[in-house]
């Protein structure tokens, strides 16, 4: 794979590993978690995001669209079934109401962008984090990128759902990774499949191998999602599992309705998730299940 599909490059990221970092959000993910923070990054093709509040209804976009996928009444509307994600409309929009999510980068171009903030990494003990979507869905590219970054002396981290081919990951990514942030969501495989679309066998096996290989460099991250992961039974089982796997450090990610508004734009409304973020009291309650581990800030 020469080029990777990247949804966003987030500079000055301070929650994706130590220090000030740049996070590369790869586009495309095999899982379908309803609470996903970045739902616009799930599909593995470029998409057009539409910001209705910026649209002035000028119609420039409609004139350029080769698929006739744009209708403009007072403001524009994208017919998603026609849109090919070519991005021609984006270039013409005077107000940036249309934005292309998903651009292809080769390793050199991406690296040159990532190196722009090298002095910020240096001053803060930061670096680069690969995230998504799911970075390991574009594993070969990740390997090359990580290798390149390591050659530059940049600290590297990955945020992964753990659903990858272990042998390849071990061979081409792991040697160039300083930190692995590994999501563990649901202990029961059946329920895992029911909610995310995929069972957890591969994920847990990968976590086990990773801990055997690099016990100090793994942080297990548990998203606390009311109605999905944050219930007594699941959390009890997860805590036991992590103990059995000899996890040393873990982070708890309290629920935030951050992804809801974004998801609405592409998938319609989800009424199963709360509108408010998890409060500190609830977070504290779940924290008590993880006294065996080093709890680190997400």
């Amino acid at each position, binding site marked *: 794979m020469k080029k990777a599909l990247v949804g966003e490059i*987030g*500079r*000055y*990221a*301070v929650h994706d590993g130590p*220090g*000030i970092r740049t996070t590369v959000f790869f586009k495309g993910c095999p899982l379908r978690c309803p609470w996903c923070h970045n739902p616009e990054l799930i599909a593995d093709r470029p998409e057009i995001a539409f910001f209705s509040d910026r649209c*002035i209804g*000028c119609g*420039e976009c409609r004139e350029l669209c080769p698929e006739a996928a744009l209708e403009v009444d007072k403001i524009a509307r994208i017919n998603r079934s026609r849109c090919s994600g070519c991005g021609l409309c984006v270039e013409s*929009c*005077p*107000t*940036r109401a249309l934005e292309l999510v998903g651009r292809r980068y080769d390793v050199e171009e991406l690296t040159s962008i990532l190196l*722009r*903030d090298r*002095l*910020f990494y*240096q*001053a*803060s003990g930061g670096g680069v984090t690969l995230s998504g979507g799911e970075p390991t869905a574009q594993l070969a590219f990740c390997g090359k990128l990580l290798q390149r970054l390591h050659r530059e002396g940049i600290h590297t981290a990955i945020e992964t759902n753990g659903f990858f081919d272990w042998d390849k990951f071990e061979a081409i990514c792991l040697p160039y990774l300083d930190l692995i942030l590994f999501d563990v969501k649901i202990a029961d495989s059946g329920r895992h499949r029911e909610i995310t679309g995929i069972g957890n066998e591969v994920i847990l096996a990968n976590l086990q191998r990773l801990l055997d290989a690099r016990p100090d460099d793994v942080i297990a991250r548990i998203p606390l999602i009311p109605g999905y992961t944050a219930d007594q039974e699941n959390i009890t089982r997860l805590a036991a599992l992590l103990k059995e796997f000899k996890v040393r450090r873990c982070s708890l990610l309290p629920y935030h309705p951050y992804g809801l508004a974004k998801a609405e734009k592409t998938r319609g409304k989800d009424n199963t998730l709360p509108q408010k973020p998890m409060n500190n009291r609830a977070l504290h309650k779940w924290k008590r299940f993880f006294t065996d581990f080093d709890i680190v800030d997400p």
Partner: protein
Amino acid sequence: MTKITLDDISLKDFTLGNLPRLQELRRLSFARKPEICIERARYVTRYLRDKDDPTDSPEVRQARKVNYFLQRKRPVFHDHNLLAGSTTSKALGAPLFPEFFALTLWPELDTVSTRAKNPQKLTPDEARELNLEIFPYWMDKNVLELTRKRISNTESAQSLKLFESLVFFIAAKAGCISHAVPAYEAMLELGLSGLIDMASVREAAAFLLASDEGDRQADFYRAVQISLQGIIQYAEHLADEAVTLAGVADDPEVRQEFLDMAKVCQQVPAGPATTFREAVNAIWICQVGIHAENINMAMSPGRLDQILYPYYKRDMEAGRLDIGRAIELIGCLWLKIADNVTMVPEASEEMFGGAGTVPAITLGGVDADGEDAVNDLTYIMLRVTELLCIRDPNVNARYDYEKNSSDYCRRVSEVILNTKAVPAFFNDHANITALTGQGESIEHARDYAVIGCVELASSGRDYPASSSIMLNLAAPLEMALFCGKRPITGEEQIGPSTPDPATLNSFEEFWEVFKTQLDWLIEKAIELNEHMGAVHQQMMPSPLLSAFFEGPLDKGKDLVQGGSLYNSSGATHIAFADVVDSLNAIEQTVFIDKKYRFAELLQMVKADFAGAEGEKMRLYLKNRAPKYGTEHPLARKNARNIVGHLFNLYQSHTNYRGGLYRPAYWTMTNHAGLGKITGALPHGRKSGELFASGITPVSGAAPELTACLNAVAELGGECVPGCWALNIKYSPETDVEKMTERFAQTIEAYFRSGGQQVQFNIMTYEMLLDAKKHPEKYPELMVRVSGYSAYFKDLNELMKDELITRTMYDLANGKSVAYLPENGGKQ
């Protein structure tokens, strides 16, 4: 070797609560209303009218004039400040300098006390004296009128006309040179008497030369002695008055305070300072003395943590001083420095409203050997700045990311977060490089201090007239667009008649046209500055200030004649970011994408983007053309080209003192005033919108913090010897400790990539909008303007809006936060 003996560098145990004197003085400083003090105007006028001998040299005439005033200057004690001496006879006074713009007050004598915005009190008796005795004398004698006389009927007359229209450039010498950092070390060691002895010996030697040059030098040395004698006499009067007041004081504590002050003034500044307190008071009395000669604008005390350190150390080791007392004395000095404002006529409120006098103090950094210079006093002065949180002095922190500790960087960051505004941060590496690039020795460059807003000077070695020219870059841009004319001046052919841009075939051709207009305007501004410099040489030499510089006493030459070691002139630029973005928009949309024809763009710009098509074009230009403050290669190229071109152009000019011109990028409040009167520009800015401040990107144009800092930083170093003001606004966070850490790390990265200066406002859109709406709720809200601090309530409406709309970044994610005024600034 560390010079830190403090257990806690943040000195948290010292608060206004346990420093009642400072608390009371601070309260007074906010309660006092400015009053115009005519004392100086009265005595210099009387002297010139009745006593002046025009056959004397300009230096001797100036010295006698200053001495005459200092002898008669009233010694007053307004409050319980521990330091003797005051800039004016009023508790918060605006001194009058009829040599400059004081006459603009003439039509406002009856209204200045009662005007709605920032009134300045003037008693009826004093107004009468100004009207009948003082102002009539000066009608044809101030710098501006003498310049007019000098160049009327010459080719230079146009330059004066351009200045007086106020929309091209400001020739600041009509109002002041000042802007300097004197060195007080020799004064503290030898006393003024020692300096006088030195001048006296050299005067005798110069006479022996038996030449015209020798006579000129002798005259200068004589002028130095006469003017310094004036300060000594003023100090003696202070001592006498303190003794008198002690005699009538009932409270024994107050009596003792006056006796102590009398004792201090009997020793200094005439004799060497023997204690920390004497050193502090000696510096203050000399500052007062300097303002008898030079107008109170950006006369900057410099590196006080270095200058005062030997006296602090000696007293601490001898057990004569403790930290609390040192804090109290430094606090008293800060409040004394803030005892004066400039006289501002109503018309100038628009341009400069709310500004203080911007005396800059510079802390930290490295010493002459390039080693860590941070000491206890650095932290004491930071603590005082944090506790007082007042507009003046303008406190600046130097930072060498290799030599200064990260504790120091964090502590400065913490003070900024706590005060929400000060100090400003200066990068030693980039600024020392900028000065060595000007031919200053490395030791001298390392001893730089900030002048006024942001300009740089090797302490007491650089006489840089750093605010000589303030040039509106949008003027030559408009002239390039409209064949040498500007919409605001109508059909008049101002600049060279360059080709209609619609006939050009490439952006390079337009760049040449722009440079033709720019170079022409700069030549005009320099031409006028040279004439005004010559007027200053005749009328306003500075023998008193010269005594506090390296060079004049060796060369026998006044500062204004080129007596200093370094003799540059400074030119600063307004609308830098707006002009870069306009060039970007033209290059990208007209010449690369060919989306618009130049004629079409010009037509829309002329029509202020009226109509639906105009608005569509405006939005496209605003949102989609490359922006300065991002890493777009075209934007980076155009920014670099302007900075590089200005550097080369200015450096090819030698001024009347034999030094080179230095470009800079700070704007005070001019970016608001000039923006208001400038037409639409090609980057989608509508007519009348405010310009961006200093070297700061246009509001909303730089969405990513790191990209913004990188884009600015790469311009830094050798090409910006006059330094710049970068304004960054952060939204406050609840976890101050975490924010401090990221804040300090971000500073370090910006400095490592070459940034010269940065200053902050830690506040939200919402809060500033509320402060505009309800000024009574924010009586003490202090903000950074462009190189100095002001109280928000004192700013004019335009500047308030500029402060409000400046891009705010969230330091938790490095992204700009959109400004949505319809939500009251709430997100």
